[in-house]
């Protein structure tokens, strides 16, 4: 299993991914094996359908949004590099990474990048603003049918009101960061990846 996967993945590729994402060697080979098992077309990339086949995602209210997040704008295939880059957002932040933050480019799992990832889940038209409609869509995905549209609307209004400081009736990324200041994003957006 593991060995089969690693033979398909070249060493230098692993090195590059390691550098870019911070995953360890064994994590990369493990995830690569997962990647190939998802890749039913066996062409080295994943399509939306490949993701949609994961049974659990069908009952995740945000499943499709998260699938979308794996695909760069306008594309409908994602290769292993891209796959790993997205997953890298969910690596826990380690102590030694905090320090070198200032020097090199920001790692994918920094607080800001984690938040940006979350922000993009809402911001479908990529105008760096969460409009009321966009928020409403996400809310609608996440609440049951028992809640009426007008109730949801007022919730959305209030939510925007909480975050919106410049009065444009939408949430910009900066406002988003600000309003989630107290939330422990580092913890809430981290997964312990297996080795």
């Amino acid at each position, binding site marked *: 299993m593991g060995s089969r996967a690693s033979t398909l993945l070249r060493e230098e590729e692993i090195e590059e991914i390691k550098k870019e994402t911070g995953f360890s060697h064994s994590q990369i080979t493990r995830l690569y094996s997962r990647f190939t098992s998802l890749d039913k077309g066996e062409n080295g990339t994943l399509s939306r359908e490949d993701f949609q086949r994961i049974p659990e995602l*069908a009952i995740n209210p945000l499943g499709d949004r998260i699938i979308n997040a794996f695909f760069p704008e306008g594309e409908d295939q994602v290769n292993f590099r891209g796959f790993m880059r997205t997953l890298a957002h969910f690596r826990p932040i380690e102590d030694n990474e905090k320090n070198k933050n200032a020097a090199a480019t920001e790692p994918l799992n920094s607080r800001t990048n984690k938040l940006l990832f979350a922000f993009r889940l809402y911001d479908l038209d990529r105008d760096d603003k969460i409009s009321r409609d966009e928020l409403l869509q996400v809310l609608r995905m*996440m609440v049951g049918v028992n809640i009426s549209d007008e109730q949801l609307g007022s919730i959305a209004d209030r939510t925007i009101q909480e975050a919106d400081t410049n009065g444009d009736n939408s949430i910009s990324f900066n406002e988003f960061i600000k309003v989630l200041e107290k939330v422990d994003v580092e913890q809430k957006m981290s997964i312990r990846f297996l080795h």
Partner: protein
Amino acid sequence: MHLSGLVQLWLLGSLMLTWPVSGLIRMHPESTGTSAETDHGHHNSSVEEVPIVTFKWPHVKTPYLITLWIFVAFLGKMVIEANHHVTSVIPESALLICFGFILGGMIWGADKKQTFTLTPEVFFLYLLPQVILDAGYTMPNKLFFTNLGAILIYAIIGTCWNAASVGLSLWGCHEGGAMGDIEIGLLQYLLFGSLIAAVDPVAVLAVFEQVHVNEVLFIMVFGESLLNDGVTVVLFNVFDAFVSLGGPKINAAEIVKGIVSFFVVAFGGSLLGMVFGLLISLLTRCTKNIKIIEPGFIFVLGYLSYLTAEMLSLSAILSIVFCGVCCQKYINANMDENSVNTVRYAMKVLANGSETIIFVFLGISAIDKEIWVWNTGFILLTLLFIIIYRIIGVFFLTWILNKFRLVPVSFIDQVIMSYGGLRGAVAYGLAVMLDESKIKEKNLMISTTLIVVYFTVIFQGITMKPLVRWLKVRRANTSELTLIEKVQNKVFDHMLVAIEDISGQIGHNYMRDKWKHFEDKWMTNVLMKPSARKVRDQVFKVFHRLNLKDAVSYVAEGERRGSLEFVRNETAIVDFKKKIGEDFTEVMPDIMADTSSDYDAMTDMRRDPVPSVSLEIHEQGMKGVRETEDVNTHHLLQQHLYKSRKQHRHRYSRSHFHVNEDEKEVQEIFQRTMRNRLESFKSAKMGVAPPKTISKHQKKDQQQQQKMANGKQLDKSKTYNSDFEFSEGDSATGFEASGTSSPWRVTYRAGAGIENPAFMPDMDLTDPLQVPPWLADTELDSSSSMVAPSQRAQVRLPWTPSNLRRLAPLRISTRSTDSFMMADREATQPRNEDDERFPPPPPPPPAPHRDEGHM
């Protein structure tokens, strides 16, 4: 303590709180120096005549004194609490000890000798249990069990380390001549080390409750202090036995026995507690008819678990902790709401009361010339060592733990953890229990223990708050204040689950899931009332309570404005009936009934409970009531946000026949997802008919299925039991096992799967019996309402995954109107053009009840 037997008789009828002090009283009524003395002013009337009034002091003396002591202690607490500016600087526990000093001084002044001290029997049998039971009962279970690993490490290894290092270092210093001339051997030092090692839950709770550090830090310190009490008592007993045996007789076999007994005592105690906890849960299933004494069971059985463990010489503290931890969930669900409140309050009264008494008597005990033996070296070195070794222990263990923790314990938290090592009454109680015939320097040990206690509780207690502030320790989040946080937290949850599924691994919640599965399947069925199971969703209770609050503030607001007109507003009533009545009466008749009766009782003039009050207020232009509205939107969200799947994915067990919110939810999400996917698919490839796509995938899938080992299928069917027969029989159900077909089978969690419906043959529609009635509804209706073709197709394709099919009848009741309304709504609210560009937004699901109310 020969008194206790006699005292017990008295206690039967008296307050539970009068138990504690029964042993405290030594017989010196005349010289007590408390207000008891004032009663002596009366004198006995003559015996020759028929007495009108007789004075029978000896008759009531013991309970009288006990009660008086409690009264005095409570008064002291009241006075202390009245001065907020003082308690905000000095923690209450420290003040109570000082209050004890004063009382003790008064007694000593009157008596020239200390007549009231805290005896171990009283402390361990009457004062401690309720404090610990309360701690267990109010334990935040999720937090506790998530961090259980770390807590156990600190509690077991940390305590052993503290005991051993303090004992050995003191012995080393003794050998080095630092203590002068005292008769303490190595074993005695270890014994002393073990009694001084443990952090005390009473002291920790008293201090940390006021500092509000973040919850993980709190649970670490508190959990450790609770569990290490058990450990410390065990260690103490083992070393005590060693000391009795005497040095030469201890061989390897005895040491092994000691270690074995350590585990037997600790785990036996915990197990016993769990058994009692389950017993309580079972009992509360059948106490429907005796609601009045229902709460009593908790206390009596909890106390019994403590006493039984004590009797079997298991760890009584661990026993009662786990008793409380185990039963809390079930009894809260099983018992009447009033009983739950009673238990909660009574528990607090008892725990707080005995905490007060403990601290006061810790203070009183100090004013006694007899126990004070000063040995500078011994005392100061002990103080030094317990602080240093605590710090070393915490940092070392955390360093190891951090290698395995998702979120490492930060440096500052570690500082607070080391500094939070407060010693308390348990150590003192153990010290007093030392046998003077075997340990010559017992009094030195007692006075050292007292000094350590005073130092940690008073000095560290006082400095804790400034330290926390100065180090900027992360404080407890004061709940979720903003809606966006609440929403975002849910988004995070869903996101993590999805990413875990995609990356195909067992999440760190895996064990919890497994446990939940087990619990849902077995424990809940046995331990919970059927009615309680149905409304187990605690959200309803929150909802209920918030509604009460809303209504009250609604009325208050109205009255403030000088008009009661709004109360009789007809639309509000109609709205209520539609919105809440219909939605929830079927699910939870109990609470509904409850609600209305509560409201009736509250005020006559209100004619209905108007739960969504604030929204109504909003609609009526009373925009000023912003807080109410906040509360309202919060609980609306609270109630309706989908739970993340981790929390409910295992409910597909045969044993659940009830309407299950979660199944409904899963279906709902599932259908939406499918609808969206189909729509996006259609918009991507114009004109491709859905059936074709589906069959294509189906073929592809079939092949994959065949490639797959059959074993996987068997696995699956086992998990699903008979529910899954369908898919077993029909290999073309298109079970897509991306998780299972890979080597990483771990990804598949039992019961989690919903088969991927996108690849299901569309057989629902072929079999007339299986056409869900709500579909039929839509078809009938579709001619009259102009549904756009794509949307019609979308409505047409509610694939039912095979393992959900058995739920179809359920859907008749819960969903039919929804779909019906959906078709309707789509027609009346044409969609944005914009939407086409996005991955499809979910079609706004309707809320039929609301709408009827408004239109």
